[in-house]
């Protein structure tokens, strides 16, 4: 047996704890039965208990699977073990949550028995897949968030762990909400009417089947993400191909929903190709922001990347690229393709093209800002400061400018049509390039042995 899983079994599934779980659940079901099924009955109670034990509590345990080891100073011993990253990943993900799955399995037994009796075996099988998937995806998301955070810093407060748990909970709620949209009985959370089909890449698919396959694929990607982060933790290097494959997949997946934009006024008259490119570019830009916030921005690593590039070690350079960098490159590529396509097929969209090009300039400014703020030797809360500045740039400053009746100056802060059109473009890229130069300058500062910093001769 996987030694990491075995260790977790020793710690988590002590007989006393198992008896306690069984007894508490039995009492809960008894209480539900005695209440006469006025609210949800035994099956309804079992469902909510499953969510509480597997999703809410399970994400907490998944979030502390590695963070707890670091806190208890046992992580170094595990890093030095011979356990392969895959085995370590699933040994921790399923080992740390095995007690939750033990309780969840009891709840599922009660819940699915009821489904089997009232709705038949096929529905019980579909529900089984859904409940297992929502448990895995929420726990894996919390686990992944904690692994990404582990690379940024070594100390983790209870609040930090709560944040990682919240990431898992958001994933769980998202899965639940999307699934509920396709529920023939209607959604409990959104109260929106059920939809029987989904249009994707111009073809119609059965909603539940489409969502089930999507859920399975995204669960797999989340697990792959955990595996790759675990590899990094175990001091192994990741090549760029898997992340590139994910970018291609997610771009193609999201681009298929162009039909959703057909009624949007801002892109009225655009053809399917333009809409798909716009969707993919927007998604990549979102991923760039997400990853630049999440990933460690270590100027020592950036200098190392520069040295690999200057000495033409392209393999090491590509292997050392961070996810936000490739997402940024994908955004630029997709946006450039969109601009070319619009120019060739819809020349009257000049204003929209200018806004898209300006948006790229502001994206450059924003990611450079994060790198700049985190590259200071003493800046520990650089991400928070960068987020604060962005709130100022996108919310506070525009509100003030608007209040003063100077709407023409809004192009200084975010993409907006300007007169003349090139002015907005120029401002955005001037800001973007200035910030990029500042970030590169700060990242290239060398340390001396005494800890003081000095400018690199190359800078």
């Amino acid at each position, binding site marked *: 047996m996987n030694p990491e899983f075995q260790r977790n079994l020793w710690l988590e599934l002590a007989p006393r704890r198992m008896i306690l779980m069984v007894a508490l659940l039995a009492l809960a079901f008894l209480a539900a039965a005695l209440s006469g099924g006025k609210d949800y009955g035994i099956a309804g109670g079992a469902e909510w208990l499953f969510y509480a034990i597997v999703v809410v509590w399970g994400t907490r345990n998944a979030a502390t699977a590695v963070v707890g080891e670091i806190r208890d100073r046992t992580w170094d011993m595990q890093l*030095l073990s011979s356990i392969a990253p895959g085995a370590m990943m699933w040994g921790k993900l399923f080992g740390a949550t095995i007690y939750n799955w033990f309780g969840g399995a009891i709840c599922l037994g009660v819940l699915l028995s009821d489904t089997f009796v009232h709705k038949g075996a096929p529905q019980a099988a579909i529900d089984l897949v859904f409940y297992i998937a929502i448990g895995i995806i929420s726990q894996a998301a919390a686990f992944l968030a904690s692994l990404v955070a582990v690379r940024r810093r070594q100390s983790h407060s209870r609040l930090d762990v709560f944040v990682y748990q919240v990431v898992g909970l958001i994933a769980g709620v998202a899965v639940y909400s999307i699934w509920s949209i396709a529920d023939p009985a209607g959604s409990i959370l959104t109260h929106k009417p059920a939809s029987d089909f989904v249009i994707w890449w111009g073809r119609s698919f059965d909603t539940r089947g489409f969502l089930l396959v999507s859920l399975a694929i995204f669960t797999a990607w989340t697990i792959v993400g955990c595996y790759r982060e675990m590899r990094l933790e175990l*001091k192994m290097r990741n090549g760029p191909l898997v992340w590139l494959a994910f970018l291609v997949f997610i771009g193609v997946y999201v681009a298929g929903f162009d039909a959703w934009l057909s009624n949007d006024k801002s892109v009225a008259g655009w053809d399917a190709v333009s809409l798909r490119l716009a969707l993919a570019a927007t998604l990549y830009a979102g991923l760039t922001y997400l990853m630049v916030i999440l990933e460690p921005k270590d100027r020592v690593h950036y200098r190392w990347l520069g040295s690999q590039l200057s000495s033409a070690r392209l393999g090491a350079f590509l292997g050392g690229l961070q996810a936000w960098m490739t997402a940024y490159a994908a955004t630029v590529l997709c946006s450039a393709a969109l601009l070319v396509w619009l120019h060739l097929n819809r020349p009257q969209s000049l204003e929209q093209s200018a806004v898209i090009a300006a948006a790229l300039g502001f994206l450059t400014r924003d990611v450079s800002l994060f790198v700049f703020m985190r590259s200071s030797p003493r800046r520990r809360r650089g991400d928070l400061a960068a987020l604060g500045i962005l709130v100022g740039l996108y919310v506070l400053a525009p509100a003030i400018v608007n209040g003063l009746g100077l709407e023409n100056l809004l192009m200084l802060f975010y993409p907006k049509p300007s007169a003349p059109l090139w002015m907005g473009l120029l401002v955005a890229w001037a800001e973007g390039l200035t910030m990029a130069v500042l970030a590169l300058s700060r990242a290239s500062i060398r340390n001396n042995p005494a800890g003081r910093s000095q400018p690199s001769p190359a800078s």
Partner: protein
Amino acid sequence: MIDVDDLVYEYPSARALDGVSLKVVPQTITALVGPNGAGKTTLLRCLAALEAPYAGHVLIDGLDTAGAPREIHARLGYLPDFYGLYDELSVRRSLLYAARAHGIAPAAAGAAAEKAAARVGLADRMETAAGQLSRGLRQRLAIAQTIVHEPRVLLLDEPAAGLDPQARRDLSALLVALKDGGMTLVVSSHILAELEDYCSEMIIIEGGRIVGGKAVKVRDVERPRYLVEIATARSDLKDFLTARAGLDVIECDQHHALFTFTRNASVRAKLIRDLIAAGFEVSSFGESTKALEDAYFAQVRQP
């Protein structure tokens, strides 16, 4: 066994190691000494392939830490200065887990756990929970977990910190036994007296650099340094000692002599008998315990 070439390691705010190069020969115990903040722990973590160098290479048993970190992890044991144990697991389960985590087959893990426990004197506490052990016994358990897979290289960061004198003596004996069993050890400490008992080589690190540029041989474990003291001054003490086969005088005056000689007890007994027979009034004879300290200050005083 360990070959470090021009190693540079940087934290975002400081360069911790600056062009470190060193070699550690097999089956030795090397002291890694230096003041607090000198870079000892960072160097050990680079040797353990837990930190990737900014520049330079670290070879452990011929493997590069940058290219084969997991293979190196399988070949070495590392005990950090601050370590944790699974307090709820028994000593047996802690060692079983460590054995299995280090790739020992399930069928052999039990025997490996028993052997490691016996080596550190925990064989009679196999069913005790780690959380119930005293500080000294926890240290032993941590070392047992580190050596359960018989690593070729053992790195210990301040292993004697907080131990009582008896526990320190036990630790010294254990480390010498591990070296005699074929392991290569690097032990970090900023307390020289702690390392006197077992280290034969010394690397001094200050400000992220190796002082003197290489490892210093502080003594030959098979030929320790002895100090003899005589009550009445004799000008022929040096000549008498120099004439003995296998004895090399390091320093000598009319009352004292510092020399290297065999560790063999009966040969040493014969030397004492000969000194007394020759009319030297021997008032003390013992192994010099300041070899490391002498070597340290000799190195750090160099310009």
